[in-house]
């Protein structure tokens, strides 16, 4: 299976110019942070590598990532003003042009470090072209998660002390069968003892109904699509 799945990854997205990988893809990278932290962060440190470091100013990558952090879509006309909007809301922003190679091996890389009401989240994502992105590293709740990259990514936390008669994982796998799990990894939370986190990398999107069902059967669910 290739990295691009939908004809609308190619014809689309509808977006504010000027660059699909550095602007629309950057909005998508910011949006991952919005989802991971459950809203707009209080502080964001954005580290650029390679092509992103060289051209972020000209391509509007700064406001695009911040627009995503605010939860805007790539065709939201507020995207070019996102930095000012975020600062008015009290978000602290810092952009860093890194000189070394990308830690995830792609020229369009951003490492985003966020502080929000729910704690700290760090992730590394790259924009692979045409607005499509990959998320290759996530640090959340003391877990260093390494998804295979492509969205959708489903993160599910489960409290080990909860007793449901066993078979929780098997039931989860049954539910995810149609979405096609391409990779499944289990992590023990360093910050929250007794909590287990599962990363399910999916081939197909989850319906809203399925997301609700999974949320109802876990301590916490994060769905990045």
């Amino acid at each position, binding site marked *: 299976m290739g990295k691009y799945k939908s004809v609308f990854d190619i014809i689309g997205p509808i*977006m504010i110019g000027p660059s699909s990988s550095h602007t629309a893809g950057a909005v998508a990278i910011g949006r991952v942070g919005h989802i991971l932290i459950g809203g707009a962060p209080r502080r964001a440190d954005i580290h650029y590598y390679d092509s992103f470091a060289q*051209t972020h100013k000209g391509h509007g990558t700064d406001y695009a990532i911040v627009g995503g952090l605010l939860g805007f879509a790539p065709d939201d006309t507020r995207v070019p003003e996102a930095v000012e909007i975020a600062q008015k809301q009290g978000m602290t922003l810092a952009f860093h042009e890194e000189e070394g190679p990308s830690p995830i091996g792609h020229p369009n890389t951003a490492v985003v470090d966020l502080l929000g009401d729910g704690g700290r989240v760090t992730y590394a994502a790259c924009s692979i*072209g045409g607005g499509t992105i990959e998320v290759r590293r996530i640090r959340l709740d003391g877990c260093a998660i390494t998804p295979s990259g492509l969205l959708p990514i489903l993160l599910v936390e489960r409290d080990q002390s909860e007793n449901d008669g066993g078979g929780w994982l098997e039931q989860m796998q049954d539910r995810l069968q149609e979405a096609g799990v391409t990779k499944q990894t289990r992590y023990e939370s360093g910050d929250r003892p007794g909590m287990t986190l599962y990363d399910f990398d999916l081939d197909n999107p989850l319906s809203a109904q399925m997301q609700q069902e999974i949320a109802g059967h876990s301590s916490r669910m994060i769905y990045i699509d």
Partner: protein
Amino acid sequence: MFSSIAELVGMAQDRGLSISDIAIDEEMRRYHETREEVWAKMSKNLQTMKSAVDRGSQGKGVFSKTGLTGGEAALLEHYRKTRTSLSGDAMLEAVVAAMATNEVNAAMGIICATPTAGSSGTLPGVITVLKNRLGLDDDKLIRCLFTAGAFGLVTANQAMIAGATGGCQAEVGSASGMAAAAAVEGAGGDSSTCAQAFAIALSNLLGLVCDPVAGLVEIPCVKRNAIGTANALVAADIALSGGVSRIPADEVIGAMKSIGESMPSSLRETGIGGLAGTPTGKRFRRTVFDK
């Protein structure tokens, strides 16, 4: 899901369908959507393309914040209407639409990425000709967009579509191949002729580097799309006349991939080499960023 052009054409031939039918069916199957839902999304993309073309070509056109690009689609449109052009009306209508779209993109207006924002003018240029010269209605144009998308999916999955990974050949080159295939379906050609046009168009732009002045999607992107759309129309005409690409489409994609991988980073959307590295290119960089 088709993973090669040969497979895509084979699916269309086996089932007696067009490339656009295959793309629509695949989208419905994967995302559990109805034909109407899938169709409505592509229709919105078409309307976005048309709006950008209108915005960039009417009146004095649009201008980017930096002042590096803008207004030239409108100039060309005026020239087309008032003078006897060298390239002819259909060709210039395509080029006006392509440049208009990329001028809107550079001015941070709304466009539809096809497959990228930097190459967003190439396909609308061809669509404009299919509409004006062949009289295709919206339903037929939407089909052409699905065809373009199917060829783009294979290209993106087998090679790349980002200037940062493969140079401009991966953006305007891919867009030109996609647009050539779309033009052939719009003109009534069969699926294998679509593949011929795609291969010819992409072959013609192999090796094209991504060297944006000051790292901006302005110079040379706007006029690269003029060439992308013109090249697509020429390739489609060659294929429709019976001309063929002696190198099969999938191998042309493979060539693009290996060329992209061997391109130095300075020529892959870093704004360092090529036109960006000329004395004038560097001067523009300073005037844009060191105000």
